[in-house]
């Protein structure tokens, strides 16, 4: 079939976008499923049996994640400035706007809600 070049390009663009979208959805779905699966108890048990080569670093707290992620774009907002429900909405907004990973956004939300205003 002798399609015009613009048609070919359109098909290529559409197919490319569809392919990338499908790949993103497939990978994210796999990651989400693996994250939702029960914790890898066997691996954890093995790790517990083996003596740790290095002392593992402490997991970042919500406050630390807040300092890492939020202050790089705007001055610090204090937990008391919003109530817990408003923080939930704002963190949803910031999770989308700043591309925050879900777990980090949830940890930050917990930190902000702990001392939230009324």
């Amino acid at each position: 079939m002798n399609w015009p070049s613009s048609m070919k390009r359109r098909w290529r663009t559409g197919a490319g976008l569809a392919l990338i979208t499908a790949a993103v959805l497939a990978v994210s779905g796999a990651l989400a499923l693996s994250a939702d699966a029960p914790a890898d108890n066997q691996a954890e048990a093995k790790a517990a049996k083996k003596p740790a080569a290095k002392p593992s670093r402490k997991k970042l707290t919500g406050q630390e994640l807040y300092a890492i992620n939020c202050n790089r774009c705007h001055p610090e907002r204090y937990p008391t400035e919003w109530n817990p429900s408003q923080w939930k909405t704002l963190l949803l907004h910031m999770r989308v706007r700043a591309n925050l990973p879900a777990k980090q956004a949830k940890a930050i939300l917990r930190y902000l809600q702990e001392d939230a205003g009324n």
Partner: protein
Amino acid sequence: MKNHSSICSVVAAGCALGLALPRQAWATVSDDDFNALKKIVQQLGDKVQKLEQGHEQDQQVHQQDQQKIEQLQQQLGVTQQLATNAVQKAEAAAQVQPVHPLPAGPAATHNFTLAGDAEVVFGRVSGQHSAFALADFAPIFLYRANDNILFEAGFDFMLANNAPAASGTAYGFDLSFATIDYLLNDYVTVVAGNMLLPLGTYSERSAGWLNKFPDNPLPRGLLPGNGIGAQLRGALPVGDRGQMVTYSIYGANGPSSVDGTGNSGSLDLGGNVGVLSGATSLPRQYGYGLPGTTFSTLGNLHSDPSGGGRVGWFYPWKPHYDLELGVSGQTGEWNDLGNRWSAVVVDATLHVSPYVEVKGEFINTWVDTSDLGTIRPNGWWVQAGYKFSGLNLDLPLVNNVELVGRYDQSNDALAPSTKTDRYTAGFIYYFSNTLLFEGDYEWLNSRGPNANLYPSNELLFQLSYGF
């Protein structure tokens, strides 16, 4: 007989002894023992009285409980009656209009929150009178329908002088963005609507109170700020120290043509919404319509939407110390002649303490035109800020000051081209974490046929408030 008489004598002796001994025992009870016994008896009497009182109270509570049970039974009866009526009505409705029942959505946990910012700008521009140049109110409406769905819309209400064309003032109203965000899972969010385009990071992080300068970098004028379309975006955490890879991929209407032609002066970065309808005088090649419609300039003036995206890498080595790098781009037709508009943006941001920030972008675009062939408008900008609070001086006013500087340049790549570069030095005074006062002086140097569009220098002040 002898045995019988001996038994009788033993019994008689026993009876005599039994009568004698109790008399001896009564005789030995003392007054102390008697009083002790009397006290015990009195205590027992008190206890009995208390138990009787408790019993009466229990009976009263029991009566109250019974009354409550009766009330609840009555309410239950009413509820059952309502439920029965509802079922009957539903059955009746189903008989009248059989509809396939849809599954209910999650229970509403909605919340409405207002955020945003407001600015007032005073300008002293070379060759012009000084004046208050802008009053801007930019609210962001955030409606969280539930844990996974957010609707957000950002507006810009601006007031500007109407002179010299007319008296009074003019109101500007702009929908900066309006999207529905659906969090598909931990790694993908679907965004649809009028989106801020992730070409670099400036569009998404440039609200008035976030920007360290009252105006935008020059080369940002080469890019569209927003677009109608749909987007997938998210982040993949790397390790557990805050490092992550972020991505955005989108399809949007993209830039359009002001008049449907492909000439270099017709590029419209901010337009392009809707479909064609209504009458027009434009010739056929400048538009296509839905069946039954004619052509107009109201709708898309190109057949292909644009595609684009951004990939970023964020590496924090400790809080307030981080590096972010990103590459983004977009490509698509911008008119019905098949001319394409494409862009690549490289962005970087560095923080080396809570007090030092450096960031910038390199922007290159390719525009297919009917009159000049493919031109390459481009530019770059870099800015830095230093907060005096890092000096740990015992001077509260000075600690609230941040010094800022910026260099930016832009080339429109027309023939002949106009090149402009600008140096900016200024400060920010933080009255609070949300109320900022900015002052900048800008030196501009522009060469080319459009150089008269730029002043030689500007003094700008801006008061901005984020909420």
